[in-house]
């Protein structure tokens, strides 16, 4: 059936956007949790653990996300684990995100100047108090722009899940473009939706930065 691109079709795209957002959220939370573990394993003074973590980070950052999606989607069934597109995408993107979050957060922690540790120490704060009240709050502020920047990438990268058949915004647009023969309108509408999400995120980041007195 061939028809015009109409408002109802835009609604269909918006519905598919749920899955884009859900996948990005899952990768954010799963990747955020794993990323904390990665950051900690990277800074704990245990050499073999550091090397292992660096290896993990290099492996994930040095290979394309699409490849990682394929590994999970086509690879896991070879081991008798059948996965659907959602599970494969959620797993692959969480792991992908963990390597980046881990490095961003480690860098933020280490970029709080040493003299802030010393200022806390010379007031008699214990190591834990320095970490909790002086260092981590500053590291969090430092990490906001790169963290949000990466989340924006993550939102856009969910479109790769279309290639393993997961129906999110991009895959829905392909389907719709085929049905309406109006690819330009469809893809423009999809791009508009991506833009609104990503622009909103960047805006929130800027507001936070201004509110939180980032260290200089």
């Amino acid at each position, binding site marked *: 059936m061939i028809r015009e691109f109409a408002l109802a079709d835009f609604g269909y795209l918006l519905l598919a956007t749920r899955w884009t957002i859900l996948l990005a959220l899952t990768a954010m939370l799963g990747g955020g949790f794993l990323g904390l573990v990665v950051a900690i394993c990277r800074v704990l003074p245990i050499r073999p653990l550091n090397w292992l973590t660096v290896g993990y980070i290099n492996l994930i950052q040095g290979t394309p996300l699409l490849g990682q999606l394929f590994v999970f989607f086509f690879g896991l069934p070879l081991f008798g684990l059948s996965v659907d597109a959602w599970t494969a995408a959620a797993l692959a993107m969480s792991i992908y995100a963990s390597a980046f979050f881990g490095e961003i957060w480690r860098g933020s922690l280490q970029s709080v100047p040493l003299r802030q540790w010393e200022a806390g120490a*010379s*007031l008699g704060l214990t190591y834990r108090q320095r970490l909790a009240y002086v260092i981590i709050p*500053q590291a969090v502020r430092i990490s906001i722009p790169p963290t949000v920047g990466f989340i924006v990438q993550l939102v856009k990268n969910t479109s790769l899940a279309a290639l393993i058949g997961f129906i999110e915004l991009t895959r829905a647009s392909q389907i719709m473009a085929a049905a309406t023969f109006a690819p330009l309108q469809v893809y423009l509408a999809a791009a508009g939706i991506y833009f609104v999400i990503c622009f909103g995120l960047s805006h929130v980041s800027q507001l936070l930065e201004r509110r939180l007195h980032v260290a200089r």
Partner: protein
Amino acid sequence: MSLVSLENVVKRFGSLEVLKGVSLEVDKGEIVAVIGRSGSGKSTMLRCINALEPVQAGRIMVDGIEVTAPGADHNKLRARVGMVFQSYNLFPHLNVERNVKLALKLVRRMSDAEASEVARRMVAKVGLEDKLLAYPDELSGGQQQRVAIARSLAMQPTIMLFDEITSALDPELVGEVLKVLEELAEEGMTMMLVTHEMHFARTVADRVVFMHEGRIHEEGPAEQILREPGTAELRNFLSAVLH
């Protein structure tokens, strides 16, 4: 009995010996100015006194606590020793009031109301009561240093250590910080201060300690030692900084 005593303190960074057997006594209420060339070990000496740096040999006592004893409680020591650094190091994520309150609550275990009261008093003392809610990035360098002094004073230290706290300031801001130090001196606070302000050292300090290549090369009453240096090194140093 002296409040601070260093006995033959040796400090090395790797193979670099920075303090080569430093001995010094500071009495309660005394004001000691530490002068000397860059790299002579002035900062390192202050940092050893509040255990920011471990020493390799010698003994340091502060207010009855043996700093260099194995297992000494450094946090307890530091709560009694105020220190202000050359680089501004207020906590940038906290406003002035909360910068001062943080250690009062965490270390002194004051209630929020008590801590607020002390913070207000201390910040007023350095003349910044109208900046209580400002953030460090909204203050000038001179104002930041005054808040840093207030933050240390709030802990009621028995001694204050100042490491070139005016060196990073624009010249027109130096005066307001020195004025706070002068007031402290009048109140009888025990102080050790590393400074390049020779006029200030002469008028405010009781004693001047000249460090040279990791040793105390010469020391004596401020007025006298600055007017009649006994060693060629101090003479050279003074003529270099005064011209």
